[in-house]
């Protein structure tokens, strides 16, 4: 099959540029050097919805998100983007193709490129997806959404605090015009205030653009505030998938998975 089916433009054309998309992951397995870290992960996210993955350290949340992106370990299983018009199968796509198709990862350790200035990072990532011409516009739009980032454009990673870096990482994700945003521990390492900021940004985004989201979170409040449904992970396997509403009243089950 021609590789160009995975350029951003080709995917746009197929799915419809601003179409409502559904994102389906099924039977996803991830292993590192022969060691299985994730078994049979299955979930679906619809337009305007968010799924939260919860579980203890090492339960496989990060592995799920990285498995979707095909980076890190070895991943097998099916990952598809579906609109009313068509289906794009990302199961065999390369990492950059997944990214260009509109599935964007905001990784847990932020991973901003240390030698580049923030403005250049945003620009670069936007260019890869929307092309050179539209990139500037896209970055402006992102800065409008996350205005806190604007003053840091000419700084480098080393000159930002952890929380600031987290905001930038999210901005970078947005610059890539995601259809599905994969957020890995967005609240990690943030002070409560910063966490509130991030939450607001993400919630606004969800409301305003209807972007689908997958969030890996250990912080239950954050997860519940954001997600519509929750997947509980225990040592590499999904235990249950439930409506978030269930837990807003009674958290015992979710805590049994996440906490001590």
């Amino acid at each position, binding site marked *: 099959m021609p590789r160009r089916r995975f350029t951003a433009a080709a995917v746009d054309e197929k799915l419809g540029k601003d179409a409502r998309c559904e994102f389906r992951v099924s039977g996803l397995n991830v292993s590192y050097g022969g060691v299985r870290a994730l078994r049979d992960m299955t979930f679906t996210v619809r337009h305007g919805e968010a799924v939260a993955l919860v579980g203890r350290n090492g339960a496989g949340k990060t592995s799920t998100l990285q498995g979707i992106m095909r980076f890190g370990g070895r991943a097998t299983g099916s990952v598809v983007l579906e609109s009313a018009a068509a289906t794009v199968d990302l199961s065999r796509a390369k990492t950059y193709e997944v990214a260009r198709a509109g599935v964007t990862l905001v990784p847990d350790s932020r991973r901003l490129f240390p030698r580049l200035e923030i403005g250049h990072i945003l620009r670069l990532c936007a260019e890869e997806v929307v092309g050179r011409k539209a990139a500037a516009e896209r970055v402006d739009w992102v800065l409008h959404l996350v205005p806190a980032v604007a003053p840091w454009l000419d700084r480098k990673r080393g000159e930002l605090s952890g929380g600031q870096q987290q905001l930038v990482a999210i901005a970078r994700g947005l610059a890539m015009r995601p259809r599905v945003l994969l957020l890995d521990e967005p609240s990690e390492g943030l002070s409560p205030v910063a966490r509130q900021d991030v939450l607001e940004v993400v919630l606004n985004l969800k409301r305003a653009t209807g972007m689908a989201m997958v969030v890996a979170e250990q912080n239950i*409040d954050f997860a519940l505030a954001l997600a519509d449904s929750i997947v509980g992970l225990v040592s590499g396997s999904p235990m249950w998938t439930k409506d978030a509403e269930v837990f807003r009243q009674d958290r015992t089950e979710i805590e049994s998975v996440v906490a*001590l």
Partner: protein
Amino acid sequence: MTAGEEVLAVSDLDVRYRSGFQAVSGVSLSLARNERLAVIGPNGAGKTSLVSAICGDLRRKASVTGDLRIEGRSVARRRPHVRARMGLGRTYQVAQVFPGMTVLEHLALARIARRRGVGRWLREVKSEFELTDAEAKVIDLLGLRKVLTQRVSQLGQGDLKLVELAATLCAEPQILLLDEPTAGMGSREAENVCEVIETIVALRPSLSIILIEHNMDVVFRVAQRAIVMHQGRVIADGTPDDVRADSEVRALYLGYHAGA
């Protein structure tokens, strides 16, 4: 050699990586003989960096400032092997082994490292292949006996961590630094690891331990005291129960509703 005597003292330790990132800022701590201290904290808090700085493993990767004393002697400028010979022994978050060697050779290496005098270099390695009773017990507890003559390249990540632990114990350290010894293990193996730690503590009353762990069960079982790190700083210090009750810790690490 009374309990309570300080064996390890860290004061005002800073770790700044070459990239400019400051992973540890102004950490001071003191470890008493026979004390078992847990270090917990979110991902990227600087736990591993702290332990690596104590062992001197960061020489070429980061600048480390601050004072470090083992048994009252300053070692801040000593190379890692000197510190090891003064009683430090560590394991790594991702097991560090010698890929072409058998498990038995790992144990023999540790034994050679432990010995003093020129004679240890000249003896045939084979003569190091006998296990003392204590070592045999550790090996049996860890279930390593059946793989003793296998090369470690054939073992899984979990087994590698066990091998590394066994080898580190063979070197008979006075201060044992364990970096997530149960990460990536099933509950049964984690149980075994705890048992090994308990056995060793019983056998060697002068042993002190620093344990980095995300698994709270292990922390509660092993540690007498816990410190919590966040963004390179110590934010709480006390018994595990005190720490768990600390609201900041709950907020940053355990989550708001961690069971008490």
